């Protein structure tokens, strides 16, 4: 049997908007992923620690609070410090296109804005894992 892709769906910072995170978490689960949901109000350290513990292939962050320019880079940096260079950091939320572009240039994976379909996200993750995780 093919190994299931393991994803940590994370809510970092003080943001409580969890509609998107939960919809994506359940859609990924139905698509055959192993999904771990971090719960709310997690610090970047807690997110990265949980990702390490759970040995995930992907961290997907949902940020609707406007703190994305702080939280994505911080989590990326912590991942690098822990040697998690083969783990994908992706996500979505209220992120203007210019910010998404800047974050992607800094090494974050693709970010999904309002109106994204779960099918696109599933395809993106499967493709990334096939190319980058062996």
């Amino acid at each position, binding site marked *: 049997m093919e190994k299931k892709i393991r994803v940590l769906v994370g809510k970092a910072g003080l943001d409580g908007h969890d509609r998107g995170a939960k919809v994506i978490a359940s859609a990924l689960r139905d698509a055959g992923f192993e999904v771990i949901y971090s719960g709310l109000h997690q610090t970047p350290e807690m997110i990265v620690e949980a990702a390490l513990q759970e040995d995930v292939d992907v961290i997907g962050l949902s940020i609707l609070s406007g703190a994305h320019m702080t939280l994505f880079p911080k989590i990326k940096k912590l991942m690098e410090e822990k040697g998690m260079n083969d783990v994908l950091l992706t996500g979505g939320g209220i992120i*203007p296109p210019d910010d998404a572009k800047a974050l992607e240039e800094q090494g974050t994976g693709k970010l999904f804005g309002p*109106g994204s379909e779960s099918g696109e996200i599933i395809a993106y993750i499967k493709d990334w894992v096939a190319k980058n995780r062996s």
Partner: protein
Amino acid sequence: MNNGYLDKVIAQKKQWREAKQQKTRDRDAKFVTVSSEPIKDLYTPDDSQDVDFFEDIGFPGEFPYTRGIHHNMYRGRLWTMRQFAGFGMAKDTNERFKYLLKHGQDGLSVAFDLPTLMGVDSDDPKSEGEVGTCGVAIDSLADMEVLFEGIPLDKISTSMTINSPAAILLAFYICVAEKQGVPQEKLRGTLQNDILKEYTAQKEFIFPPEPSMRIIVDSVEYCTKHVPMWNTISISGYHIREAGSTAVQELAFTLADGFAYVEACIERGLDIDEFAPRFSHFFNSHIDFFEEIAKFRAARRIYAKRMRYKYGAKNEKSWKLRFHTQTAGCSLTGQQPENNIIRTAFEAMAGVLGGTQSLHTNSLDETWALPSEYAAKIALRTQQIIAYETGVVNTIDPFAGSYFMESLTNKMEQEAEEYFERIDALGGVIPAIEKGFFQRDIAKAARKYQDEIEAKDRLIVGVNSHKEKDEKLDIPILRIDEKVTKEQIDSLNKMKTGRNQVSVDESLNQLREAARDGSNLMPRFIECAKAYATIGEMIDVLKVEFGVYKEPIIF
């Protein structure tokens, strides 16, 4: 209505439907509301035959208030145009407030940033990246003084969207007023102060439900005695809907939360007819026009009946469900954002036709950022066009008597009643929260909605239909200056060096004592505020006493 008449209607409708099926074919589409409620092709007198004009509809300003809570509705006074605003430091938001007042807004509505909502100070590591980003940063009374500088608090009403630390922000407001020479008896405004929907929807909780309820009842008790014109709780369905609920769930869960506050205040020994007239509600107005209007009408009727017959309220003011409406942020799209102006206008119109007392219209850019000044002005203008140009304000509750509207209103009332029974069977609102009942139903509805969009059973213009190729975002985006965090922390540090540490410690000690001995916390919050203790300092004291809440994980 005599049965012969209805029989004739039913017989002729059958013939009509046969003819319709012979001559025409409906499009291949699902005729359901945004909440997936099926809607018939035609409504006739038999659909609303259970509706008794006197019992169920009646007259505006009279029980059960289906048609509105005032005798004259908008022929007397228009709704309050109240745009929610807040970003950056207090001085930035103070400028926006003055801008909105200058352009004809009637009341203020403060959006606080997440650290303020969560009771942590701007210099706390948890606040990193969040200071002033989705609301204004308030750490202490000093910030609140800047926020309302030059705005006379005896002339304006202020709504504050704040929940876990609501009583603390109210204490700040009372202190600012006192400095302006305005006694607390004269203050008008609304505190959201609705913790129950935090556990089910907005998720900005701090303490477990029981001590949270105690703080709320403390603030209600205090205001009933000392700030009599203040709306103590704004029982909110808005966030429940934004979290993905259906219209009926929003209606039922919100009203259930409200009744839980009523019961908690009665249990404290407060007189329902003293506190209930200051309860208000806050609903979402989503894109499904008729369903929303029916929801507002059903809400008033259910509330009036329960307050009168179940809780025994005798004061008419206790029976009246007053509400604020905000158009649905979750209905807006990032794609072709100008289309959001149209969505918001329809939603706002539904709020007005549903008899709202105040209204916030969302800005076209809200799926990308906080509103720019440009977008905020269009949103306000939308309300002004409805009020002054469309003529909908001329007559009261114009949809009353519509076979469709009355049947839909009835159906929503019945479905809400079924939810109340299920909540009662679980032991009430708090046990139902602990069992994850609301959270599970809301998450299911949110997932279903998304699935319908992805299956194209539900079309959203610009998202899964009528898309534009290579669309570029071409609207101004409000950016919060990165300097805000540093400036806010500097200002907090400066404030701390200038205050009397002995008074701070003393007031915090008294707060701790009151938390332990069960006496009302409001006077203690006011003393802490006057000593310039920060929100974080007060909340930290209470976290030790009350503990912190961890939610069940459900998805």
